[in-house]
């Protein structure tokens, strides 16, 4: 019901929040950042999660509402450096990602797909439609993610 009175930007943020909550439960005490400038200031991702309070693997999520150009989105996500990559969908019920587009060219890594749905109580629930597979990532990104996590406070984390 609320959905109809929210702007697209508000709805996008609401879905981001639901996906972040979902990832927070799936990972081990992650640090989660919204609208993160990753891998550089010139580019960004909707959600960046670093597992194990910043010591673990890098996860990125792009959230898409409605009928965006989803095959193109998958290709863009696949180019972002991370161990795990996800496309989160809301209101794209008819989209079925082709298996081939989700896989890394070398076969090492598959983009995960998260479907977000709203129930009758106006609550958003996220679930995997396609589970992700780990991508290969150059070790130089660990230094980069360490710099990132030390420079910016996390939006979601368990305080030590």
């Amino acid at each position: 019901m609320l959905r109809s009175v929210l702007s697209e930007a508000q709805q996008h943020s609401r879905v981001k929040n639901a996906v972040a909550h979902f990832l927070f439960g799936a990972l081990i005490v992650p640090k989660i950042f919204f609208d993160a400038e990753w891998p550089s200031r010139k580019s960004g991702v909707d959600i960046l999660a670093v597992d194990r309070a910043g010591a673990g693997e890098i996860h990125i999520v792009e959230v898409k509402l409605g009928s965006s150009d989803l095959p193109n989105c998958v290709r863009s996500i696949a180019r972002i450096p991370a161990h795990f990559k996800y496309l989160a969908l809301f209101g794209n019920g008819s989209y079925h990602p082709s298996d081939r587009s989700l896989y890394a060219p070398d076969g090492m890594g598959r983009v995960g797909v998260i479907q977000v749905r709203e129930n009758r109580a106006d609550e958003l629930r996220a679930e995997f439609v396609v589970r992700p597979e780990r991508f290969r990532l150059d070790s130089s990104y660990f230094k980069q993610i360490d710099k990132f996590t030390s420079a910016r406070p996390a939006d979601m984390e368990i305080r030590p």
Partner: protein
Amino acid sequence: MKNLDPIATQQYIEKADHFLKGMQLAALEFAPYRTGIALLAVHSAISLNDAITTGITGKRCRHQDHLAAVRDLEGISRKHRVQNLNGIGHFRWLLTEKTNIAYGRRRLDDALIRMSIDRAERFHSWAYNYFKEILHAAVGA
């Protein structure tokens, strides 16, 4: 910080993960698993402490006296100039409650169980924040 036994560290991290995730999963339903949740919280911290200790010293902490393990972790933390010692407090609290949780005759109250979850999660966060090099190398990230 150099990890003296990354394989053993990884094995303890894996155990800690299993206990922590078991705790979180059981906490979703809570009532049927109350005591189990609290005990999993304690063991998740013990295993992660074993991961740190093994990584740094090459030996697992084998004290029968739980508080000796806390003192060891505190010593390691001070030696490595860890500024934030909150994790020591979380670990001490969990180990102090262990006997009550596992063997006490009284029913545990909800507040204690929820506190166990909170302390365990915060201990994990503390450990990964302040022993990053040791645990990072072991998880292969």
